[in-house]
């Protein structure tokens, strides 16, 4: 799937103009090309249908087994005192309590009684109170500027009629984030303290981060049923892995002297962890908290499919109804919420450590934020009883932009339909279709052979075995064609993302002003939940592979840009000076010095791009692709656990093969350039 990339990792030529390895891969590539286009005729001529169609004898019934196991788990499994279902119900109940509380505070108020007899005895926080609280947090974390910014963001939600949905989403995040942070912290500490725990944890985390999100949803849906609790469980599981990794890394990053100091003053294990290591690692840990918040938001939106409600649900229903205006409105609200939350948590990450100062004498002076916030909450709550305007934002003053967006999209579609259609047709005919035909045409035994060979060349028998087994798994589960569809869409998207991203990264690294602009743009792209990308794309290009591709490219662009820029920026300036002194032109500097030296970093960026592309690909199943993602999505709608897990794991396996091959290639390139062997993943 990536022969050209492999060429560059081959050992340097000595006497031959092309190294033997490169030559081999060139010939193999040619053979693949020929085979792909003749496989159908070949199989007919040889009477070997198994070449193009995976024979039935090779298939196994893993998905039915998994489904049967899940049914057994839910219906019959028993731990003596309680059944498995009791356990899941217990967990659900535990999660429901704080969630209901958060929802009551933000949206529904405290209610007694059921149905029509329900009486609200305490209203939810008024919109003014919420806006004030986030503004106060913004001021506390950074500055008055941030306070105004996040205040305006939340005000936007009220003015544009997205308040209730946004608060439902916010309630889920308020519960999911502490759980994700706390759980991640504990697991990370475990990984730091016990080597064996880390060894068990790392592959699990690898798999968790590569299995597509939808595949999580299926078993969770099966175990916890449709509703906000399922969504919460999925969100926590999805958002926790980075926190675990960052915790372990941050703790390892604590200077050894600090650890020795802890030992020398006679800290017990617990004192060491909580009094010395965790506080010292705090800045690093805060980065993890930011990650958890952003991933939770992303997942809460996606989890609307299993009953999270809120903004994600609005987008989903609009997409299904093809209600352009409604979808865009809710989408923009998600973006606004995401940016506000990101800025807030970023401000906490970068918050300067405390300055010395006299401790204020009175309680009021020590806790100005808490007191002011409480006062506003009380005041608006009480006044709200008299003046409903203060309690909930008046519907008459709401502005709806649905019609505006609808018109805008319509105008574009009416006036530029031909141009858009021309671009789409051109791309489909000249890029998408040929690549797809090529990949689907390659006989499966040949493809597995190639992947295994690549594994052998880059990582000897260990990697070769991994590649063989993982691709074999996809084969025996009867998902070969779906997998090829996935690789085709992912490959094309990554190619385009690389073609756009690497030059952007080069520009960003060489020009400070452009760098700041591109950095800001990329940061914003990354804060947006993946769901959001689908909306404008579908509006303009309707459903299909092309729309999916654009959404994937947008979502996966960031790492290509970032890693390229980072790779070029971190080149030893002396090398560039040496080039300048030898009289290189700027182009020569770029092509002869900067790009070759940044190559390992760029490869890692492409690797990340592939990972993001694969995860986005599954979401684009919503706009009608026909790959593994669609398989997962169908499984989700049918609650078919086995099917969903097998397809999801297949996506993860593709990701793992790509990741291991590229990482091995990057390591080789690094070693050849004599750079330090640290992986910046």
């Amino acid at each position, binding site marked *: 799937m990536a022969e050209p990339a492999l060429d560059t990792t081959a050992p340097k030529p000595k006497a031959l103009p092309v190294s033997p390895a490169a030559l081999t891969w060139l010939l193999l590539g040619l053979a693949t090309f020929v085979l792909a286009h003749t496989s159908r005729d070949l199989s007919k001529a040889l009477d070997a249908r198994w070449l193009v169609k995976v024979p039935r004898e090779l298939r196994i019934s893993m998905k039915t087994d998994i489904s049967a196991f899940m049914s057994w788990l839910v219906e019959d499994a028993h731990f003596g005192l309680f059944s498995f279902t009791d356990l899941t119900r217990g967990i659900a109940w535990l999660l429901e309590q704080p969630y209901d509380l958060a929802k009551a505070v933000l949206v529904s108020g405290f209610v007694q009684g059921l149905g029509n007899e329900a009486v609200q005895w305490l209203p939810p926080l008024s919109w003014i109170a919420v806006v004030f609280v986030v503004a106060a947090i913004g001021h506390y974390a950074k500055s008055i500027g941030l306070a105004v910014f996040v205040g305006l963001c939340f005000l936007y939600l009220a003015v544009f009629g997205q308040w209730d949905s946004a608060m439902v989403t916010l309630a889920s995040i308020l519960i999911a984030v502490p759980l994700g942070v706390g759980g991640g912290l504990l697991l990370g500490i475990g990984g730091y303290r016990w080597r064996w725990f880390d060894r068990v944890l790392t592959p699990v985390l690898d798999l968790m981060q590569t299995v597509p999100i939808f595949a999580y949803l299926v078993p969770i849906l099966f175990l916890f049923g449709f509703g906000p609790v399922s969504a919460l469980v999925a969100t926590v599981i999805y958002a926790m892995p980075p926190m675990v990794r960052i915790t372990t890394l941050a703790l390892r990053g604590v*200077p050894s*002297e*600090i650890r*020795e*100091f802890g*030992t*020398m*003053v*006679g*800290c*017990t294990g617990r*004192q060491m962890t909580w*009094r*010395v290591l965790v*506080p*010292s690692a*705090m800045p690093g840990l805060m980065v993890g908290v930011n990650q958890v918040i952003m991933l939770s938001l992303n997942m809460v939106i996606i989890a609307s499919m299993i009953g999270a409600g809120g903004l994600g649900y609005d987008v989903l229903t609009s997409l299904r109804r093809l209600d352009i205006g409604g979808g865009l409105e809710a989408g923009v609200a998600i973006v606004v919420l995401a940016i506000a939350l990101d800025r807030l948590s970023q401000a906490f990450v970068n918050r300067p*450590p*405390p*300055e*010395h*100062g*006299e*401790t204020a004498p009175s309680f009021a002076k020590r806790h100005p934020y808490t007191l002011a916030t409480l006062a506003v909450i009380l005041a608006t709550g009480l006044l709200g009883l008299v003046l409903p305007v203060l309690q909930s934002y008046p519907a008459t003053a709401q502005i709806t932009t649905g019609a505006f967006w609808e018109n805008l999209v319509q105008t574009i579609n009416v006036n530029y339909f031909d141009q858009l259609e021309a671009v789409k047709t051109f791309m489909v005919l000249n890029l998408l279709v040929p690549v797809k035909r090529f990949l689907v045409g390659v006989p499966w035994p040949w493809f597995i052979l190639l992947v295994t060979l690549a594994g052998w060349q880059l990582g000897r028998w260990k990697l070769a075995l991994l590649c063989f087994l993982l691709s074999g798994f996809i084969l025996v589960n009867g998902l070969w064609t779906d997998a090829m569809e996935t690789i085709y869409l992912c490959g094309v998207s990554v190619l385009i993302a690389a073609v756009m991203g690497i030059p952007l990264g080069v520009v960003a690294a060489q020009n400070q002003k452009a760098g700041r602009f591109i950095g800001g743009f990329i940061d914003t792209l990354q804060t947006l939940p993946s769901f959001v990308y689908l909306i404008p794309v579908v509006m303009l290009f309707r459903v299909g592979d092309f729309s999916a591709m654009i959404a994937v490219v947008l979502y996966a662009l960031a790492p290509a840009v970032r890693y390229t820029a980072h790779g070029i920026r971190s080149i030893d300036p002396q090398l560039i000076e040496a080039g300048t002194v030898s009289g290189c032109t700027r182009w020569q500097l770029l092509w002869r010095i900067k790009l070759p030296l940044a190559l390992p970093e760029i490869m890692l960026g492409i690797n990340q791009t592939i990972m993001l592309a694969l995860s986005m690909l599954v979401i684009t199943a919503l706009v009608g692709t026909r790959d593994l993602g669609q398989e997962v999505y169908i499984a989700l709608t049918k609650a078919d656990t086995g099917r969903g897990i097998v397809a999801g794991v297949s996506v993860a396996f593709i990701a793992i093969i790509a990741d291991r091959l590229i990482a091995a290639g990057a390591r080789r390139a690094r070693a050849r350039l004599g750079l330090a062997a640290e992986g910046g993943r």
Partner: protein
Amino acid sequence: MQEKPVKLACRDVWKLFGEGAERFLAAQATAPGLPEIQAAGLVGAVRAANIEVRQGEIFVIMGLSGSGKSTLVRCLSRLIEPTAGEILFEDTDLLRASEREMIQIRRHKMGMVFQHFALLPHLTVLQNVAFPLEVQGVARTTREARALEIIELVGLKGREAYYPRELSGGQQQRVGIARSLAVEPEIWFLDEPFSALDPLIRREMQDEFLRLQSMLQKTIVFITHDFDEAIRLADRIAIMKDGAVIQVDTPEQLVLAPADDYVAEFTRHIPRAKVLSVRAVMQPGPPGGEVAGQVAAGDRIEAVADQVEAAGKPFAVVDETGAVVGSLDRRAVIDTLIGREKG
């Protein structure tokens, strides 16, 4: 000073890094040399180290980077588990102490100062200094009172509420010193405490350190890679090379009788007048002619140089009992001052 009891001793301590180090060492009949250790794929960080630190002395371990001095001091405090040997602290073997016993010993009897200060960034100066007491469970008022006392002692009064990053390097290390003294340790480890500081500040901190020691009389193990610093501070110096202790002696003896060329190379460029005593350079026997006055045999040449050089005649040298043991003339002083070998 020679008669003071031994506080901390290490006997034949080894630290080899690498897989199977203990098996390798146990299998050797005689002490393995560097080539054998390297051939086994191990790193010999400390090899057969023997030192004795006496009550109340400043014992400096000096060596260049990679000589194993940091590993040795970590073996002494058992931050690193030695591969073989004994660490005797007040005649009990630390290596046999349980984890719980070690925690008690470290809490009450040891203090350590680190090269890069190792201050906790989220605590104020006061909280940092009180931290070792807090870990022991000492009540807040008691520990803060004690911390304030030591903060004043190291000259940081008025900075109690500052955070470490608001202080200069020298001030941060004062906090580190104060913190290590908070528990009134019986043995005080200082691991290159002044290496991360600017030369001027370093000198100031050395003076400060000597001032503190003159008040506190702690038993001190001081690590440095700077021979000048070692000479300036030490009662005795252990010189390490490639993991082995090659000489343990007073600064004067190191200069007068270096064990090998390696030690001699260090001593060659140091100002001898600061190290040598009158006794080492005097002409033994009663002075031949008239004398200008008397100097004590134990004085450093540096201290009497001005006096001797200004006078036209030699000085009589007297020992502690007041008996005349030799004479010191202008020529001998100048030889020492300009570093000319005696011809």
